[in-house]
């Protein structure tokens, strides 16, 4: 599709803008638009699974995390102004120009070298995957077949990565001392309309998220994207009702037990007589469901830690310390 050139140019412009703009808040919004264009670009490069993951995780969740992290600190505009008027400013500008020239020359050499010497020696993995993924794994979506059956060893570490990343975030954000930033997020009452209508949408989004998880092996989707959709229900729910509703302590335990389930299930993959029976397809669905719920719990914890890092909401105050 020649229209992708338009998106590529827009991406480059947005990347430059998000680096050069002075205020971090604006840079983050540019980053969100950049990853939105990135997601649509993947769709035109016929990678629907990837564009889903990038749109869901890259543009919506990443932007939200950035904004929450820099929330308390961009308010002091006066401080930013004073920094950039000092005489050191000219020195910094000169440094940026110098490095710009160095990067342009080296980048040009590398890129021209790359396009001069790139060659393709054939793709045996591609040849084999495309021809035999239906018979081997019983999945209709080759991408799910790969990351749930051929290369399931990687997916185990990916689930572990999400578990550890969320453990780290919860661990760092519970740091007791240090000056508390102003808590203005939790106390703000939200508009009534958003609360009412988003209340209407929950069952629909939950059903849709579960649909994406369950037939991840047929149409694009699967554990990670479906889990993120379910987690978005928690996020909208926070905007509707001020309360947390879900206890982080239980969520952390749930996430770890789902992870153990994933490891146990992938161990079943090793028994050869298990695999050529028709259990293969059921194995895919079960793995997708487990990954989906694990990602949902994980992202929900991630969001609650970030949004509630200052305010321990009253109904979970007692138990929200680390389990």
């Amino acid at each position, binding site marked *: 599709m020649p229209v992708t050139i338009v998106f590529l140019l827009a991406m480059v412009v947005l990347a430059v803008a998000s680096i050069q703009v002075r205020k971090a808040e604006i840079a983050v919004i540019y980053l969100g638009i950049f990853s939105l264009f990135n997601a649509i670009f993947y769709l035109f490069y016929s990678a629907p699974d990837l564009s889903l993951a990038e749109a869901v995780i890259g543009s919506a969740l*990443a932007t939200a995390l950035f904004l929450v992290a820099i929330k308390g600190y961009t308010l002091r505009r006066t401080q930013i102004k004073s920094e950039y008027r000092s005489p050191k400013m000219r020195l910094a500008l000169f440094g940026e120009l110098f490095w710009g020239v160095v990067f342009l020359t080296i980048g040009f050499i590398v890129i021209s070298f790359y396009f001069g010497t790139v060659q393709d020696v054939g793709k045996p993995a591609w040849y084999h995957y495309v021809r035999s993924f239906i018979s081997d794994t019983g999945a209709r979506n080759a991408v799910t077949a790969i990351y749930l059956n051929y290369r399931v060893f990687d997916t185990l570490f*990916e689930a572990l990565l999400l578990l550890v990343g969320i453990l780290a975030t919860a661990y760092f954000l519970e740091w007791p001392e240090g000056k508390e930033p102003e808590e203005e997020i939790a106390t703000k009452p939200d508009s009534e309309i958003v609360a009412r209508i988003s209340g209407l949408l929950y069952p629909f989004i939950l059903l849709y998220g579960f649909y994406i998880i369950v037939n991840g092996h047929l149409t694009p989707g699967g554990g990670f994207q479906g889990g993120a959709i379910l987690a978005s229900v928690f996020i909208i729910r926070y905007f509707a009702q001020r309360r947390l509703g879900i206890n982080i302590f239980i969520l952390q335990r749930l996430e770890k037990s789902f992870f153990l389930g994933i490891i146990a299930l992938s161990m079943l993959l090793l028994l050869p007589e298990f695999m050529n029976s028709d259990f293969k397809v059921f194995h895919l669905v079960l793995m997708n469901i487990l990954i989906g719920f694990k990602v949902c719990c994980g992202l929900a914890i991630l969001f609650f830690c970030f949004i509630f890092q200052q305010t321990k909401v009253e109904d979970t105050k007692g138990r929200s310390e680390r389990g």
Partner: protein
Amino acid sequence: MAELVSFIIFFLGLYALVVKRSVIKSIIALVLMETAVILYFVSGGFEEGKLPPISDALPEQMVDPLPQALMITAIVIGISSTAVALAMYSQLHRKYGTDDWKKLMKIRLEEDA
């Protein structure tokens, strides 16, 4: 064309890492570099007119499914490493107060002495 753009964005991110002194800009540059690498990986496996690797297309017409499967992992890596970096950033800002790499280093050296 997509490979050229991914190289450009990769070196743009590296440029921002070297030049920009704010911590949050370094994290944004890191996200840009990771997105550029994912862009390159996927555009390597695509040929014009090929269809997504869902079973209703003929095997010859399917695009390479391996980069897409790996890049879903890379995106999840990107989000969790950004989340950890941002969690540390919010603690850094609460304790040190500044957002500038040079000032942070000066404060850190005074603490050691």
